[in-house]
């Protein structure tokens, strides 16, 4: 299901890596932790050399240096491939959930009843109508022209008024027109009238109609958004030939962003609705098809998070985190739900920490508290053959974000100490030569955190 994006198609994941790069990478990373690992590294080098020497001795017939090297390269490549095959499932796993399924048929775009628009109605008797030739039945295309050429917003600001039929028509055009130009222009139109202001809490334009959350939600439903998705059950249905969300989704995101920025003038969403919007945005972050829109999604997330009042935020933050945690499975996706919340404001940091925490609780089958989780993490035995380093990695990233993203948690000495002890265990008890998949990732991550963040 995790089809790579176009760029990634070229990236033949299965072709053997150039050996040089692999080695340099290991050394490079260890350089970073020079103090800690210089010794171990030397040991590794020695072992390698010894191995090469031994093998070389066995096959004396390869006198020619070049041939020897070629042969060695082949061997190493073979080993490398075996190793890769050994840990293939985990190494290639990517985050990504399809949160958009089949699109539903779009509602027909009715052009508004021109008779009910006063500003158009009054023009019918104008002498200029002999040139303009505006007729009731051709009103739709005329309005489209007014919109795409920017006259509609000029008229709105001149009259200080947006009539209901025009507002509805522009809204529907934005969400359901298949024409890029119309989507853009109507999105710009709505953005312009929403961001207009006379006073802090007043629009400079009287807007007769505002969409409600249900309108936005049903648009999302039409686009095929899977309100009841869960990342675990998604893989089977991936073969369905759906094309993903329509381009209108961009206008949808932008519109929601604009709505969230105007709470002082009009509260478009209720608290519960705003919570759902944050959840939806996080879900979109999980869909690889949205990678190119991360700027747009980030802005929207930021605006929606700031939409809440201080009183609402504490409980809303927890609600969102709980909702997300019970939807994603314990794989890279749950890391993605955390990392998609960029730490631009204290609220975003808080949300990030909360999602990480709820994910952890979920991973540990509803453990009673974070302390319990850290205790069990601390007690993990890395030498145990059954130790699942992939899970360990996920737990490590989640714990990191839970503890370090929120100053509230970071300032708790007990939790902080436990987390540090866990990091120390990871970085010192996992052997550098442990070849199990994700073992080195856990070790590197822990050492990195110890070095830079603790």
């Amino acid at each position, binding site marked *: 299901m995790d089809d790579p*994006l176009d760029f990634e198609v070229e990236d033949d994941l299965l072709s053997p890596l150039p050996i040089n790069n692999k080695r*340099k990478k290991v050394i490079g990373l260890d350089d970073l932790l020079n103090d800690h690992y210089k010794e171990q590294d030397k040991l590794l080098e020695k072992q390698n050399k010894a191995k090469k020497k031994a093998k070389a001795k066995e096959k004396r017939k390869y006198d020619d240096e070049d041939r020897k090297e070629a042969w060695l390269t082949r061997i190493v490549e073979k080993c490398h491939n075996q190793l890769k095959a050994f840990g293939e499932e985990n190494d290639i796993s990517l985050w990504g959930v399809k949160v958009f399924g089949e699109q539903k048929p779009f509602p027909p775009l009715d052009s508004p009843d021109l008779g009910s628009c006063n500003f158009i109605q009054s023009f019918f008797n104008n002498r200029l109508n002999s040139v*303009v030739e505006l007729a009731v039945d051709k009103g739709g295309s005329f309005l489209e*022209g007014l919109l795409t050429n920017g006259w509609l917003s000029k008229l709105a600001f*001149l009259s200080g008024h947006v009539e209901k039929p025009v507002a509805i028509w522009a809204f529907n055009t934005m969400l359901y027109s298949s024409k890029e130009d119309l989507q853009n222009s109507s999105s710009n139109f709505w953005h312009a009238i929403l961001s207009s202001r006379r006073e802090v809490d007043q629009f400079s334009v009287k807007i007769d109609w505002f969409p409600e959350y249900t309108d936005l939600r049903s648009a999302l439903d039409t686009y095929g958004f899977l309100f009841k998705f869960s990342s675990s059950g998604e893989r089977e249905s991936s073969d369905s030939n759906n094309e993903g969300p329509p381009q209108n989704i961009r206008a949808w995101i932008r519109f929601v962003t604009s709505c969230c920025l105007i709470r002082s003038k009009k509260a478009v969403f209720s608290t519960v609705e705003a919570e759902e919007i944050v959840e939806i945005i996080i879900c979109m972050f999980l869909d*690889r098809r949205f990678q190119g829109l991360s*700027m747009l999604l980030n802005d929207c997330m930021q605006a929606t998070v700031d939409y809440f009042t201080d009183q609402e935020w504490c409980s809303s933050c927890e609600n969102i985190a709980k909702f997300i945690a019970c939807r994603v499975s314990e794989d890279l996706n749950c890391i993605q739900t955390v990392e998609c919340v960029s730490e631009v404001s204290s609220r975003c940091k808080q949300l990030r920490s909360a999602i990480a925490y709820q994910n952890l609780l979920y991973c540990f089958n509803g453990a009673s508290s974070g302390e319990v989780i850290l205790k069990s993490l601390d007690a993990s035995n890395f030498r145990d053959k059954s130790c699942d380093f992939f899970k360990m990695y996920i737990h490590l990233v989640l714990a990191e974000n839970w503890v370090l993203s929120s100053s509230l948690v970071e300032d708790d000495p007990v939790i902080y100490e436990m987390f540090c002890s866990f990091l120390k265990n990871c970085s010192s008890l996992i052997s550098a030569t442990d070849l199990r998949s994700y073992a080195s990732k856990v070790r590197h991550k822990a050492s990195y955190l110890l070095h830079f963040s603790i």
Partner: protein
Amino acid sequence: MENPSCNERWKRAGIEDNMLLTMFDASDTNQDAVDERIAFLDAVRASSIGLERGKPPTSKIFGAIFHMLRTGKSLQLIVASYKLLVDLEKHFPRAYLSGVDDSLSSSNSPRKLVVAEEAWSPLILYLDNATAVSETGDKQSGGPLDPSSFHVLIGELVESLTESEIQAASVKNLLLFQYLVIVLEGDFIPRNATMNWSLQRESLLNVLLILQGSRKTNYKSLMKDCVEVICVLCQLLQNDLSKKFEVEKSSESQSSKNCHAGLSLALLEVLKNARVSMKKLLVMIMALDMSRKKADIEGHTSRADSPRTPLVDIVLDELAYSKDTVPHFLKIFSEPKWKLEIVVQYLWKYITKPSARTRRSSGCTEDATFDGALKCFSNKNGTKSIIKKIGGDVVQLLLAHGFQAQLSILSETNANDNIGGGREEGGSALVDLCQAFISAFDSLKSTDRDMEILSIGKEALFTAATAISMKS
């Protein structure tokens, strides 16, 4: 994060440059490498923007991020590096006016320009030994661009956008271009606000243009390419883009349907934003031209400020040369002040000047406004000759767009006057404008009875008539 030791922590450790070495070696062709780079970007963000009194990353780190933007293969990485660069630019401005936030000082003391001299720049611009450096601006290295590679970038944009299929790689170039415009803007706008030519002339934008101008044809062709990018983008976004993707889609395997959806979402968004960026770039250059002209009149320019054809003139030539570009360019180039300037100059180039007046008389320059141009249409012979010279369609487009720009400027001043109470005056100016516009169109129609009124002309007439009925 308020913890003071936190800052210390980062300062002590920094991000070791050694860490970067790992980034340069391997290409991001496997997911592991992509993950590592994303982790790197996150770490840079946390250590600079994430901290309360964080410092900008070192040049080496900046270089590494920029390298990822230029050479990245995965969409995730390209977008992430672009976003980080843009955020860093916002967070650590390369130039700003001191005391902007301080309302007390704004009254009398002039605001001082503060420039982050040592800031890393994605453009290599040395006035002194341009030739010595320009050799190294190769694309492979993914390093900063020199003036000639900036030109190459714009050229590539034109090329890739006019191809029948839009390549995925153009997302990268478009984002790179957008980032460069943000950098130029961040440097130019505060400098230009000082109204001091010695500061304005040192702006990255001016230096970039001077270096282009060292071979004069280069500068002109660069500007022409810029205009072309705008027109191509306008056409692309106006037409049904899905057709373009259809071609691409059929050639793709079933498995990449998914990436197709992701890419087309990203591509359209990027195209739309690139259009805005290009518009910004042109507006900045026009503002720079104006500042230069002003400095010239006041005698602040020196021989080092080699003369350059103003961008408005180049645009006018371009529009006159290929009439097909007129509707696209005017539609996208929505900035009222400069749009009006272009329309007025275009019209006045072809309006027959009243023969009674001599060149020296001051009346002529006064008339060279949009209102003046509208009045000229009351003269039937003049109207006939201008239709003959530039064609009825272009006349209509110019009038409609000029009207729109003038309308924006008037309502802007009206909005400002509202506080002072000059509403009546503004309203009557608006009605006058609308009436003059309508009579110009009447005269067009009566001069050439077969002339077909374009839809934009109809829309403009409708707006004018509606505005009159609202205000009177």
